[in-house]
């Protein structure tokens, strides 16, 4: 439709301009590439703009480099983990990085990349044979890149440490000056290295030696062998989730934790994900509908610093999915096709699917839909809305690690409305039939010990844990957790961290009266 020589087996005509088809007046104005005015156009990206192969490549590569250059977030010599799923966008990103490294020009990328691949087969209910097949394909592609890579299976979430859920603060953000200094220092260092031919720290040597990267000592870690029991546990967890919407959110949460863990254990300070512009527009509207309005800037912005020490960056955020698809096709970027959790699900199965279908459909009718939504997202900032409490010590969500966005229960907000209904419903029967129903959760978890009303019985203990986990979640994660009948199948690190935080909060309450407050202005602004 948009590409000349649409028959996909045929090589793209390079030299001779395509003969004008009779009766096709559009052909006239697209005789030459709009950029160089002499190449034969091979595809149309935007309405009326036909690009030749080389100009399209230049345009595409420039966009990628420009996003990185504009933001100046990735310092030279920094270790960057590329989150690669095998899909078109992340594959394109991987190859962009490879190309940027191998180029002999002055504009070489100066960071040290590694790749992480997460095998989600168990969550999607795939059988071991299929997974092994996919894994072999993945390995052959990754080997061909020559980058160090880490293959992890989603099952490994059962072995994650609690520390994944913590925020490790980093030294304050550095300004432009610091970036320039770092670049200059790096270049000098490299020149020194180039003449001496020796390198002291292997972590600071990308670029020049890229091609001769020793493949035998690749620090690649082939997937830790996961046991069948873990696979079983993971599929039990996902099967217990009632809705596909919550399943997708859970998968995303676990995947993020796993990637974060890999990044931290191997000393990567940045993670790159391949979210394209189209994907981000869909994600934006999806997250809006999931109640994540407060976190949109983190979820879809260029940089996501919520973890503190590891920053997630999205360098593909200016590329439309269509461009990605054409680039991958024209330049034969290898991708791996794996069924995802929502494959073959009907359109009405989840909020994610519905939003995707809606945006893509509207985009087909109104080609500016995606870019409009995307531009709107750029106007969002990573701060609580003006007038809201913004104390830095505010607790973070246990799952998504964003700052909690829930007010007290009886405020006139959407959250307040829901919790008051829940409260009035719960109170009404409790008053009438108190004697009959002793297991009704009659108090908040913090007060249980004092009153001693939820003592002893196993079910109430479980409810206690449930309440204590729910309390530590943001609005959206609470809604998702409602689709999870029991917390038991969740990986242990989440539950233990929840208990730890709960204990800490209780201890804090006990010593509260002896602590001296030093920030009355913040407390005052809390109520709006």
């Amino acid at each position, binding site marked *: 439709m948009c590409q000349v020589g649409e028959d996909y087996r045929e090589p793209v005509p390079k030299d001779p301009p395509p003969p004008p088809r009779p009766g096709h007046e559009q052909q006239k104005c697209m005789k030459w590439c709009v950029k160089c005015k002499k190449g034969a156009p091979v595809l149309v990206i935007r309405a009326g703009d036909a690009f030749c192969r080389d100009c399209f490549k230049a345009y595409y590569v420039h966009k990628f480099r420009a996003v990185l250059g504009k933001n100046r977030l990735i310092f030279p010599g920094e270790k960057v983990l590329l989150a690669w799923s095998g899909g078109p966008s992340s594959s394109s990103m991987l190859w962009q990085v490879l190309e940027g490294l191998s180029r002999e020009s002055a504009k070489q990328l100066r960071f040290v990349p590694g790749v992480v691949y997460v095998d989600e087969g168990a969550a999607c209910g795939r059988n071991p044979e299929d997974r092994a097949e996919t894994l072999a394909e993945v390995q052959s592609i990754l080997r061909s890149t020559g980058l160090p890579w880490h293959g992890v299976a989603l099952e490994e979430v059962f072995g994650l440490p609690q520390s994944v859920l913590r925020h490790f603060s980093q030294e304050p953000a550095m300004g432009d000056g610091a970036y320039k200094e770092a670049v200059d220092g790096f270049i000098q260092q490299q020149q020194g290295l180039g003449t001496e031919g020796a390198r002291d720290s292997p972590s600071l040597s990308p670029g020049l030696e890229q091609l001769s990267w020793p493949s035998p000592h690749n620090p690649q870690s082939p997937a830790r062998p996961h046991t069948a029991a873990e696979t079983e546990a993971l599929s039990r967890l996902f099967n217990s989730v009632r809705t596909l919407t919550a399943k997708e959110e859970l998968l995303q949460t676990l995947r993020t934790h796993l990637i974060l863990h890999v990044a931290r254990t191997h000393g990567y300070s940045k993670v790159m994900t391949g979210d394209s512009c189209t994907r981000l527009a869909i994600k934006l509207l999806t997250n809006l509908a999931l109640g994540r309005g407060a976190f949109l800037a983190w979820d879809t912005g260029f940089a996501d610093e919520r973890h503190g020490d590891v920053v997630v960056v999205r360098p593909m955020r200016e590329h439309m999915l269509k461009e990605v698809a054409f680039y991958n096709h024209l330049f034969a970027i290898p991708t791996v096709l794996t069924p995802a959790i929502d494959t073959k699900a009907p359109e009405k199965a989840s909020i994610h699917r519905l939003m995707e279908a809606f945006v893509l459909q509207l985009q087909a009718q109104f080609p500016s839909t995606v870019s409009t939504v995307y531009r709107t997202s750029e106007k*969002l900032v990573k701060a609580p809305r003006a007038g809201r409490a913004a104390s830095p010590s505010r607790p973070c969500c246990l799952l998504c690690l964003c700052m909690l966005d829930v007010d007290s229960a009886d*405020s006139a907000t959407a959250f307040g409305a829901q919790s008051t209904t829940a409260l009035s419903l719960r109170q009404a029967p409790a008053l009438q039939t108190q004697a009959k129903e002793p297991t009704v959760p009659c108090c908040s978890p913090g007060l249980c010990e004092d009153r001693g009303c939820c003592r002893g019985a196993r079910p109430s203990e479980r409810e206690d844990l449930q309440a204590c986990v729910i309390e530590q979640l943001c609005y959206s994660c609470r809604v998702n957790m409602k689709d999870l009948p029991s917390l038991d199948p969740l990986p242990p690190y989440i539950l233990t961290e929840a208990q730890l935080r709960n204990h800490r909060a209780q201890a804090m309450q006990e010593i509260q009266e002896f602590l001296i407050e030093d920030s009355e202005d913040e407390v005052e602004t809390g109520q709006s």
Partner: protein
Amino acid sequence: MPAPPCASCHAARAALRRPRSGQALCGACFCAAFEAEVLHTVLAGRLLPPGAVVAVGASGGKDSTVLAHVLRELAPRLGVSLRLVAVDEGIGGYRDAALAAVRRQAARWELPLTVVAYADLFGGWTMDAVARSTAGSGRSRACCTFCGVLRRRALEEGARLVGATHIVTGHNADDMAETVLMNFLRGDTGRLARGGGLGSPGEGGALPRCRPLQLASQKEVVLYAHFRRLDYFSEECVYAPEAFRGHARDLLKRLEVVRPSVVLDLVHSAERLALAPAAQPARPRACTCCRALASRPLCQACTLLDGLDRGRPRLAIGKGRRGLDEEAPRAGAQPPPSAALPAF
């Protein structure tokens, strides 16, 4: 299968399941709960102080009917007095019937009713006349753009006429959720930054407005009207099918099937959106023409009317706005064109 007993009073049989919580309640308990929730919203949000004279924007539709009824029940507890204000947009065959419903309600509840008409307020422009005027402009006729702006203006006039101190409208959670989706799809950052709360506190001399039903879902509003046997007018405006809102409404309906709480989740998102300072709306000021609240020298109502009077109805909508500078109003002194041109 017999209906389960009401989960609240345990005496009567349940007559409904609450859409959000799934709880089975009898009609009386549901209505009591609904009223309690609206009361909670008004009190917790400090929307209507005691002694306020409240103008209820009554269209005759379900939302405003329910709002007026609930507030009438709550008025003694809140210590406010109510006035109904209806707007006659001049849409033949639609508004007349709706206004008849408003009149019946006012008579039944013994509330004072005031009707303000577009034709009187806006120099003879009725919506039918606007529709005729915009009909030739090719694309969608954008009737709702005009009607929405002018109705807000008319409501304000009507409220001032009855000596009200506050204006309440019947927007429910679904309306709010649609609006958020719509503003994102249109990239309307100004409105995104402004929206979210339960109303505006009345800046720049305008009356404070609020939406007490904003946290109530549309389904519950309909249920309440059903159990209170309220008489309302339920037909879609003849111009509505052309509105952009249809896309958002459609999407919301489908989303709600997948996750019933999505409406409130969207409202929550809207409450929490944080926009860059550059996207914040301009400081409100008074319109140079009618002294009403405006974010530009001329308020949107005056701009639209000006466009209509000049026979260029799309002047203030979307890209038509570019035409605003090219031709200043004929009346009044104009600066020479060279002075108006920006220096490049």
